[in-house]
């Protein structure tokens, strides 16, 4: 099976090379049959990768430890769900997933555009196959997911406990979908530049893929944040880590793109800007992958050095140089005849928003890469932690939120005083009332940036609600429908607009949650014995009792805490730290079960709409040290005394003879674990009270909903009925000479 899987990868690589050649030959020689053949090569690649991925999944489900990746990341005790998702927890499997998703999305876009963009699509096909082929080549030559060993272990090493979390299992497919979808407008942008077909056609046909990239990548980023908050045991959801930033940068770029393309579609402006943005977004997607897989930066996420750094640098070099070269070559043709008429216009607001987003990307890129930059300049790596981001990101985020509210309200081309009065009165008034309420009713005045975010968030919420109300009212005036029906009908008829408004609403809610939780969080490190208490932000945490459980796959030491606000019992929190058996023989037969370095925390969390109460325990196992040492000595002596007899037995006989020995060991481990619960020792807790965290997740769900609404296809019947009143019809763009 391993050979067959590798053969599929090699065949996939051959198909990529063929498809590139066929597409380029077909478009250059005007042979549509070759162009079609190149497109079918993409379909064939998708089919091959589906089979390859299924093979890998079967190997995991069957616990076939002859496959190295199965032995390294799975075991017989892993639940089925994690076996299904474990393939992409390894370098090799994740590369295969990348090629699979890339080929599937590429197949979809090429199928949908098979009768359109005839001069752009072949070049786009070549670019998409080139990128898929790159990752396929990595899988073939550097990280083979089907590599096998002739001496398979009886059981695998298992999936790292930290990764056994639902968020962490969906996080990679979401991120990879976002990255691979981003390649589509990138490829069509390159195709447009090469072919000289520089109108808006390619943007219209790939806009949904850019939006889908934005949606998937955004969901992937939020899943990572959720995992960090509920699993990693540090109490935060965003640490400005290198790989978090690597995913955020292309997301910010494509956010700018899905806004600014509206200007190109409506007014034919910003063509250089748009094509530059999407090429930048595609390049940043690959750059993010490079950061993760090369280990070039130290970060909590940047994995150890691998052999993939150099190929990625080469690919990035090709992408950057070709992008810049093509844009420079076509710069005259990309110039727009139209200009921004007024700074008080929707076009200008979109442009400001774009500039702010790009500035944010630059800031994040600079600070993330600064250790390398400083090392190149001074010879020493300089660490710049999360506090360096705050002075830049916070003001830029405030401007973005303000623009998210202004943009939908302001007119195209030039806003008049009447327009401003009519559209801004209610949202501004709502924001002012919010400001007064926040200052009067809360103690938030000491945090001006947080207050500013609350006020601007309220402004955005009010502006969106106003637009929804007006649109629904207008719809009701025509159709006489009830409010709910009119609202649904309104959204169905203009999904792009109202999906966008919904996403704006979600962003405002999300950033209100971020501002509240980051500005007003209270945390405390305490050491408590059972019965003792500690206070955090008006809440009393009382350590009730320790817990301890011995399971076949792990031992868990935890705590129960009762939380009070005044005399009122608010919640009971249960937190624990699971220790997984180590493979280090020097830990001893008993001691390997108490290795604190192969651990996974379960946080105690009580989430609420106003506050989250969060805790994690760091159990103190030192008092058990004497028992563990005694156990190690006793069992090792017993094993040594039986070694001579065991050496004369077959493997099956040894297993049968040792069965009682292992049972006795398990009983001993369980006894030591019980001692932890019955002789409680002081343990360390991290206690956190954090307001408004839940609104981050709620806001993210609203943003995703908005993205889905905008992405959903409009029914044909509605499309036929709806006159295109909001489009300025431009003369067709003159076709430029194709590049030789």
């Amino acid at each position, binding site marked *: 099976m391993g050979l067959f899987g590798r053969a599929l990868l090699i065949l996939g690589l051959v198909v990529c090379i063929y498809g590139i050649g066929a597409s380029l030959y077909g478009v250059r020689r005007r042979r549509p049959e070759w162009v079609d053949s190149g497109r079918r090569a993409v379909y064939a690649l998708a089919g091959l990768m589906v089979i390859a991925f299924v093979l890998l999944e079967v190997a995991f489900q069957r616990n076939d430890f002859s496959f190295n990746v199965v032995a390294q*990341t799975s075991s017989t005790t892993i639940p089925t769900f994690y076996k299904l998702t474990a393939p992409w*927890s*390894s*370098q090799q499997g*994740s590369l295969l997933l990348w090629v699979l998703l890339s080929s599937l999305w590429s197949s979809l876009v090429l199928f949908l555009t098979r009768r359109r963009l005839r001069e752009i699509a072949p070049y786009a096909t070549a670019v998409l196959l080139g990128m898929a082929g790159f990752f396929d080549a990595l899988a073939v030559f550097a990280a083979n997911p089907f590599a096998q060993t002739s001496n398979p272990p009886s059981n695998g090493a298992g999936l*790292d*406990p*930290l*990764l056994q979390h639902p968020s962490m299992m969906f996080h990679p497919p979401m991120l990879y979908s976002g990255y691979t979808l981003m390649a589509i407008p990138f490829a069509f942008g390159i195709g447009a530049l090469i072919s000289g077909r520089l109108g808006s056609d390619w943007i219209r046909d790939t806009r949904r893929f850019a939006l889908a990239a934005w949606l998937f990548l955004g969901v992937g980023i939020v899943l990572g944040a959720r995992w960090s908050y509920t699993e*990693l*045991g*540090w109490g935060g959801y965003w640490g400005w880590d290198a790989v978090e930033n690597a995913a955020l940068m292309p997301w910010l770029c494509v956010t700018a793109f899905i806004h600014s393309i509206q200007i190109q579609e409506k007014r034919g402006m910003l063509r250089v800007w748009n094509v530059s943005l999407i090429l930048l977004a595609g390049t940043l997607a690959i750059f993010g992958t490079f950061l993760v*897989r090369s280990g070039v930066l*130290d*970060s*909590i*996420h*940047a*994995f*150890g*050095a*691998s052999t993939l750094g150099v190929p990625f640098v080469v690919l990035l070099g090709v992408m950057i140089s070709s992008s810049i070269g093509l844009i420079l070559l076509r710069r005259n043709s990309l110039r727009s005849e139209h*200009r921004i008429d007024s*700074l008080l216009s929707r076009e200008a607001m979109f442009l400001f928003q774009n*500039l702010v987003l790009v*500035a944010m990307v*630059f*800031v994040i890129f*600079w*600070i993330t890469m*600064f250790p390398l930059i*400083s090392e190149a300049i001074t010879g*020493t*790596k*300089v*660490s*710049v*932690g999360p*506090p*360096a981001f705050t*002075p*830049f990101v916070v003001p830029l985020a405030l401007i973005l939120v303000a623009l998210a509210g202004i943009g939908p309200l302001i007119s195209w081309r030039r806003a008049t005083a009447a327009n401003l009065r009519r559209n801004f009165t209610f949202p501004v008034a709502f924001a002012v009332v919010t400001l007064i309420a926040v200052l009067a009713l809360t103690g938030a005045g000491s945090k001006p940036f947080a207050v500013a975010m609350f006020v601007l968030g309220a402004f955005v919420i009010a502006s969106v609600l106003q637009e929804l109300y007006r649109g629904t009212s207008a719809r009701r005036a025509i159709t006489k429908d009830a409010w709910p029906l009119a609202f649904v009908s309104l959204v169905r008829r203009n999904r792009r607009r109202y999906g966008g408004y919904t996403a704006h609403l979600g962003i405002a809610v999300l950033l209100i949650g971020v501002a509240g939780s980051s500005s007003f969080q209270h945390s405390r*490190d305490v*050491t408590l014995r059972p019965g003792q208490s500690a206070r955090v932000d008006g809440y009393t945490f009382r350590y009730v009792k320790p817990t301890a459980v011995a399971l076949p796959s792990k031992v868990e030491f935890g705590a129960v805490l009762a939380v009070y606000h005044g005399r009122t019992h608010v919640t009971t929190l249960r937190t624990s730290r699971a220790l997984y058996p180590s493979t*280090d023989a*020097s830990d001893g037969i008993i001691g390997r079960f108490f290795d*604190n*370095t*192969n*651990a*996974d*925390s379960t946080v105690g969390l009580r989430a609420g709409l106003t506050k989250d109460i969060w805790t*994690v325990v*760091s159990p*103190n*196992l*030192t008092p058990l040290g004497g028992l563990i040492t005694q156990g190690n000595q006793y069992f090792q002596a017993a094993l040594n005394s039986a070694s001579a007899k065991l050496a004369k037995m077959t493997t099956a006989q040894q297993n049968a003879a040792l069965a009682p020995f292992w049972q006795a060991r398990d009983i001993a481990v369980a006894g030591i674990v019980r001692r932890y619960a019955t002789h409680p020792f*002081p343990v*360390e807790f*991290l206690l956190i009270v954090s307001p408004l965290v839940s609104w981050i997740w709620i806001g993210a769900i609203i943003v995703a909903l908005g993205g889905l609404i905008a992405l959903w296809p409009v029914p044909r019947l509605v499309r036929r009925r709806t006159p295109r009143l909001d489009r300025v019809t431009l003369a067709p763009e003159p076709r430029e000479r194709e590049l030789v």
Partner: protein
Amino acid sequence: MDPSRKRAIRLTVALSAALLLVTALIYVSFSAGRDELTASQLLAKARPGGQYILAGTVLDGSVHQQGTTLYFSVRDPKLKVAVPVRYTGIVPDPFAPGRAVLVNVTDQNGTFIGQQNSLTTKCPSKYQAASGSLNS
């Protein structure tokens, strides 16, 4: 106002804002940044009372816990040198021998004390290469 003059003014304002941002970024980066030192660099540069960021890999066999204090050594990526660290605070779940770490330390007369809750660790590596042994 002449449209081309308007454009020139807008471009000047935009470029000025960009220049301001870049200048502020460079200034903050160099002023707020602290050198990451490897084990060998730390041993060469450390002065009593000094605060440093130590970067390296956790040495195999060096980790043990006594009460709420964690003892471990951080090895140099290139040289066969390791620095012992005494640390209190929450230990990140990914912490383990062979994992790359960053920790803020204070030199207390030759003993390096880790600043509470300053320990960060690389994620459980899908792509991890060598272990943290001095012999590898």
